[in-house]
């Protein structure tokens, strides 16, 4: 048959080869055209799209009639630092994983603005992270706190754990205290929750000597949260009347600081060597809580030798001399 003949002929082979070459050279051209189109409309997919406005001090707004781009200033509140976000625990997220997909439109719709953002527990329950950090127990603890009981719906975990910079176990006193001070030293955020004057933290802690040293080296939660043995960071902020006021709670051998701030490190490091090498001293020095085991033994031994020596001397003096 002809076609069979044709197919087998060298002409057909060359024809096929020719068509194939054209085809191959055409297909990529088509694909890259689509890509080019996509990147025009969508190049700023994902976070870059939001960051172009929210990651900058200024953003450009195009006038659809004149085509002119107007420079506008992003309000401080709307600014997200992309470098900080990239270091946070949720850096792998799309903005729209937490925020409504509606935010892709600008101006943002009311619907987008009013959509509620999920809580930690909505994602972290039953997963390995939730297990590692005991989210359910933390939530239980938090629900008992003054913040939750007085302002249950408005006060979410996000109030302290700033969504775009949150990083677990930063464990610097400064980082932890900045969470509390973001409200307690900032009337604007405080008033978001409660429209009353914000008590002055410095004045309210005037009774504490060396206030600066304390507030820089002790976490607020050390005095204000009830210690919970089953979680690393107590979340039950107590009413002020129950805050720690007694100096010896910290300035003693069984300092509460050992159970809290240094729990994590201490767990690894506390040994019979006392606290000289332990984490407790890496950050600060707490009178009364710091003792060195060897130093203690040495001083007791020396003391006993001296007293023993004197006792023998007295005995010999009184019995032998006269």
């Amino acid at each position, binding site marked *: 048959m002809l076609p069979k003949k044709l197919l087998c002929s060298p002409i057909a082979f060359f024809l096929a080869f020719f068509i194939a070459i054209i085809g191959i050279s055409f297909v990529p051209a088509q694909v890259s055209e689509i890509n080019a189109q996509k990147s025009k409309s969508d190049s700023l997919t994902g976070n870059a799209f939001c960051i172009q406005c929210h990651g900058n001090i200024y953003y450009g707004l195009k006038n659809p009639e004149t085509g002119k781009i107007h420079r506008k200033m992003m309000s401080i509140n709307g600014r997200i630092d992309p470098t900080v976000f990239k270091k946070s625990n949720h850096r792998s997220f799309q903005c729209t994983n937490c925020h409504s997909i509606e935010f892709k439109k600008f101006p943002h719709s009311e619907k987008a603005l009013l959509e509620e953002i999920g809580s930690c527990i909505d994602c972290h329950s039953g997963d390995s992270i939730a297990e590692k950090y005991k989210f359910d127990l933390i939530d239980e603890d938090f629900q008992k706190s003054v913040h939750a009981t007085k302002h249950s719906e408005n006060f979410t975990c996000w109030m302290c754990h700033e969504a775009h910079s949150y990083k677990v176990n930063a464990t610097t006193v400064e980082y932890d205290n900045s969470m509390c001070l973001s409200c307690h030293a900032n009337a604007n955020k405080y008033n978001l929750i409660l429209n009353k004057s914000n008590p002055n933290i410095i004045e309210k802690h005037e009774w504490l000597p060396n206030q600066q040293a304390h507030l820089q080296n002790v976490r607020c939660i050390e005095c204000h949260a009830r210690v919970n043995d089953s979680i690393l960071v107590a979340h039950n902020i107590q009413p002020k009347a129950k805050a720690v006021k007694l*100096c010896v709670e910290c300035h003693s051998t069984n300092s509460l600081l050992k159970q809290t701030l240094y729990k994590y490190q201490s767990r690894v490091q506390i040994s019979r060597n006392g606290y000289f090498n332990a984490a407790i001293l890496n950050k600060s020095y707490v009178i009364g809580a710091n003792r060195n085991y060897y130093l203690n033994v040495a001083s007791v031994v*020396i003391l006993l030798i001296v007293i023993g020596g004197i006792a023998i001397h007295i005995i010999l003096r009184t019995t032998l001399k006269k």
Partner: protein
Amino acid sequence: MAQKIYYYPVWIRIWHATNALMFLLLIITGLSMQYGLFKIRFDYAVSIHNVSGIVLSVCYLYYFMANFITGNLKYYRIKFKGFFKRLWVQFVYYTVGIFKNQMPPFPLTIKRKFNPLQKFTYVSVMYIIVPLIIISGYAMLFPEIIYEKVLGIPGIVLTDLVHVCTGFIGSIFMIIHIYFCTIGSKPAANFKSLVNGYHQTE
């Protein structure tokens, strides 16, 4: 030939009384802060310790300068040649000779107020230990002057270590000091001397 020597002029007696009292207060409040002994309220202990530390340091300055001005310093001067030999002799006297009713090898005279062992301890305590206690104490009172880190160890930890160690040495000195003051013509003789100023030689 018994003789009365005016060893302790009024300024020494005033200094010594204040010094001893402050030292006692510091030891008691210090132990209370560090070990919770004596059950003194922590904030009171801190305040007492701070105040008596400051009084002690003023006292020390007074002692330091008066020692120069009055010439009392000459009793502290150590002649290095053969000093260790003399220390040993005095040590042997205290551990052996004294029980055999031997005479002290370095009897006190107008020129010699302290025997070699006394000289050694007084000089080390008054010119090394006490200054260290005072300096480290002030450093902790004003922690911003302390180096943040020394060889990777927080400066405040080292400062505290110096303070606690020298404080301990000072306390041990005080115990031994008081005991050795009972070795005189009579056990109470030296204490009487420090009240009325006169030393009775044997």
